[in-house]
């Protein structure tokens, strides 16, 4: 059974301009699915539309076979979906501990136990719980954003370009952490510009172009698909 299913989704920010033009997608429970594509292909818009932030014109989104099309974000959080935006994904004037608290606002039973789980996953955050998020480095910020999204122990985690604007070493770290989160049982929808790395750790991949998925297949298939390699993966990794 698919945990998340997107059916012929058409959506856009302003009336008359469709950014998603009939996107289809399906995520098995427990899988890690990568969405790649050029700048402006509509990857972020897809993530935002699933999360109820972009007006839907037609099509539908199902989570656990329940129609969640156009449901507001707070409802999705309660159902067990978390989303980490591409940019501005932490509260800069709140401390690390306070950011994590906000992540579990809807259910702050066992707040300390939940926070300890996040600090175990990201030890560098645990060392500076009282530091304000605005003073963190890019990598730490991204870790905090993921930690905040994991506070509700979601079934599905949507990550929008977690490795954007990070140094190569940090990119390695972030991908390792994503695999670790996945291994602990969270289903992940990973939107990435770092296409090779994303496909390498994904069970399934989608290549988006012009608001539609143009190719799909297992990570390995896409990594070796001549057209995908030529058009979207370029020469180097």
């Amino acid at each position: 059974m698919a945990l998340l299913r997107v059916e012929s989704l058409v959506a856009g920010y302003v009336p008359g301009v469709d950014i998603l033009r009939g996107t289809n997608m399906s995520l098995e429970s427990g899988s890690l699915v990568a969405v790649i594509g050029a700048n402006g292909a509509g990857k972020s818009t897809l993530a935002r539309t699933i999360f109820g932030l972009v007006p839907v014109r037609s099509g539908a989104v199902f989570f656990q076979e329940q129609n969640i099309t156009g449901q507001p974000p707070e409802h999705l959080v309660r159902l067990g979906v978390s989303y980490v935006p591409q940019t501005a994904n932490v509260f800069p004037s709140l401390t690390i501990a306070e950011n994590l608290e906000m992540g579990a606002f809807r259910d702050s039973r066992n707040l300390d136990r939940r926070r300890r789980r996040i600090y175990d996953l990201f030890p560098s955050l645990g060392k500076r719980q009282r530091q304000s998020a605005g003073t963190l480095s890019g990598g730490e910020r991204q870790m905090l954003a993921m930690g905040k999204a994991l506070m509700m122990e979601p079934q599905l985690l949507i990550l929008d370009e977690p490795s954007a604007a990070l140094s190569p070493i940090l990119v390695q770290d972030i991908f390792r952490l994503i695999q670790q989160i996945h291994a602990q049982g969270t289903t992940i929808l990973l939107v990435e510009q770092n296409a090779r790395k994303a496909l390498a750790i994904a069970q399934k991949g989608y290549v988006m172009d012009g608001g539609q998925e143009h190719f799909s297949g297992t990570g390995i298939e896409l990594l070796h698909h001549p057209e995908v390699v030529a058009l979207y993966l370029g020469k180097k990794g």
Partner: protein
Amino acid sequence: MDWVTALLQAGIDGVSFGAVLALGAIGLTLGYGILRLANFAHGDLLTVGAYLTLAFQAGLQWPLPLAMAGGALGTMLLTLTCDALLWAPLRSRRASPTSLMIASIGLALVLRNGVILIWGVSPQRYNLPVSPAIALGAGLQITASRLWALGIALGAVVLVSLLLQQTKIGRAMRAVADSPELARVTGVPVGLVTAITWLVTGGLAALSGEMLGLITTMRPNMGWLLILPIFAATILGGIGNPYGAIAGALLVGVAQEVATVCPASLGSLTQYCLSTDYKLGVGLLIMVLVLLLRPQGLFRGTRA
């Protein structure tokens, strides 16, 4: 050395007036940070709070503390009503900051004229014995009502700071001020935060108006005239930053009083003194200077 005494006395008066301004400025700056609203009706909330208290105290003969609490409560309900009838519909239509500001000027007119309709235009006072002046030594003094204003303002400031730092909903208010959209996707109940922000804003504005009613006479335009120094304090402190607003309010309050000091020992020079009519102009001048020289304010404000 009567000018030293005069300056010190102006400082004392300025601090107590600054405390009144601070109560107004905290609400304005929270509203800007959390609701993204430059609320020109904020001054008239002060007026409403002061007049409601008058109705309870002079009208219904309630004791003053109870009347003040009633005035604050009434103003809090008014802010929630305004949110439901005006601000929520504008938000859901994604009104621009400029439209919101213009709507707030409209609301200011409605509130002020509502006060005029009910209570008339003539100056009014609470039904209180004359407030005795307390000697502080060295020729300095402070009236009991100013001392009360200072104490109540201080208490309110401490409570607001406890709210923002020590409670979960207060931390959520700071989160929404940082980024309303991120707050929504994180699962922070933005609607609840909005309501609490209005309650705090309304309560503090009413207290500010009531304190003003204690130290001066009340007129229907009392709050409207104060909106400039309140904005000046808010901008000075970095808009969106409540602690900055308090510091800004104290600075504006003291500057207003000190700039109009005019001791008799200046002799014929007193003709060059700034008349007390220009007090409000001092606040305006500070605002203009800050906007020109340091538009982000003296302290860090809300990131856009």
